[in-house]
């Protein structure tokens, strides 16, 4: 049974369509990325799935429950990290997490564990008001992981973070997914989507024009060519087929090959190809 089921969801704000008859489903253990430019409706969809917004038409189910009826029991199995999730500035990282440990009924030992995952173990006594944006994001992630949720929602988890903080967050998410947590994330960073997601869906003008695994999408839009750079010569593009295969064989035999690059498009290029616009 899918862990998330979205069926023909439509949502309008003041006559403007944010989501237009969207349908998809996510299986247990998947990392699913919703990709699109700012203002595409990613956050609206995430809010809808977490019961913060009601759909105008259609139905969404999370863990088998209709999203506008998510209550304590279901929320116990869900972790949510959004860019506007709040922390108590005057309290330490530890005290912030302690509150949620009590609310979710988990052991205080979990605080140490989640802080290790986000590499903040040494900073736990620091007050939140003294943390950088990246560290705050990591605290938010730690809080979302406290109760070992079955399903984790992340809204732009690494937006505006430096590479080191991004690395820590990605590392934490991979470890969590390996333990079986399903992750639904929104991002406008295609590299993040490629690095983390089993499947991505492009959200454009309220619709999902394309969905699939990053590898399969790249293959689908690939022109099946490679760029070969040889010693002392300009790069050349070779195609599938006996003629270029022979050339390639000769280059290898004569030790001329410096680099070979596959010409699969990036997700950014696929997005532009499909939607006619880039990600901003």
């Amino acid at each position, binding site marked *: 049974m899918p862990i998330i089921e979205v069926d023909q969801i439509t949502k309008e704000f003041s006559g403007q369509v944010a989501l237009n008859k969207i349908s998809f489903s996510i299986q247990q253990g998947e990392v699913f990325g919703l990709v699109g430019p700012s203002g595409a409706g990613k956050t609206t969809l995430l809010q809808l799935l*977490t*019961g*913060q917004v009601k759909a105008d038409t259609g139905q969404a189910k999370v863990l088998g429950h209709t999203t506008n009826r998510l209550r304590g029991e279901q929320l116990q199995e869900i972790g949510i990290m959004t860019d506007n*999730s*709040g922390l*108590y500035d005057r309290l330490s990282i530890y005290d912030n997490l302690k509150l949620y440990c*009590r609310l979710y009924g988990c052991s205080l030992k979990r605080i140490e564990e989640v802080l290790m995952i986000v590499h903040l173990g040494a900073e736990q006594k620091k007050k939140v008001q003294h943390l950088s944006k990246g560290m705050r994001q990591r605290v938010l992630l730690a809080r979302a992981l406290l109760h070992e949720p079955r399903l984790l929602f992340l809204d732009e988890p690494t937006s505006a973070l430096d590479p080191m903080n991004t690395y820590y967050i990605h590392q934490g998410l991979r470890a969590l997914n390996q333990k079986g947590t399903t992750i639904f994330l929104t991002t406008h960073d295609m590299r993040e989507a490629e690095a983390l997601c089993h499947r991505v869906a492009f959200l454009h003008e309220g619709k999902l024009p394309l969905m699939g695994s990053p590898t399969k999408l790249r293959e689908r839009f690939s022109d099946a060519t490679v760029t070969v750079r040889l010693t002392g010569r300009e790069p050349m593009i070779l195609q599938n087929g006996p003629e270029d295969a022979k050339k390639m064989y000769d280059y290898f035999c004569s030790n001329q090959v410096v680099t070979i690059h596959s010409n699969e498009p990036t997700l950014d290029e696929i997005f532009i190809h499909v939607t006619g616009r880039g990600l901003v």
Partner: protein
Amino acid sequence: MNLSIQRTLAIFLKDVKDVTRNLFVTTTLLVPILLAIAYRNLGDITLEIHYTVINLTFSSVTAFVQCTLIAEEKEKNTLRTLMLSPATTSEILLGKSLLSLLITLITILLCIQITGYVPEHVGLFALGIIGSCLFYLALGTVLGLITKSVMEASVVVLPIMFLFGFGTMLETLASNNAYLKLLEYLPNLQLLRFAELLEQQKFTSLGLPLLVIGIWSVLSALLAVMVYRKQLNSR
């Protein structure tokens, strides 16, 4: 009603830690205490003055602190995060009210120590105080929920502080105008009426002011839950 003591206490204990580091709130507690000291120095304290200090405690401590605590949670988006946790409406609202209740009771005890007020019947006095406190807690909660920031909340709460804090002065005004007579049914004036009857040992007449205070408390608590639920549904 689903109520987990552990969750309610967790929210309360968090607030205790948070408020002790919040100068904005802690300095507010001094207002009624300073007023009590000022009145004590003037000497000859009447029942009205004792209750001016008590009513000011309700408006400037109970309602104000509660309003600020809720408004800050809203401003920093922590209320939204609490709403997305397994904590229920009753756990969140009760947990958020315990600290204001505790602070209020301590402040009132300090103030009556300073002004030298000795109630005729401690149990009935406590009943009147708790009943009134519930009203001001609910009022503070509503104001905190409908405002967007601590700054906005501290402005919105001012007329409330005036109306309920110095309400005993309204009594003179009310007695001169038929329409303003309705002001006599405000919870602060009903508390004073209750205290007067208590002082005169007219125990059988205490029911009416207690009932009025009770109605105010129940209505405002219902309003607080309603406003909270509305926020919950538009999380």
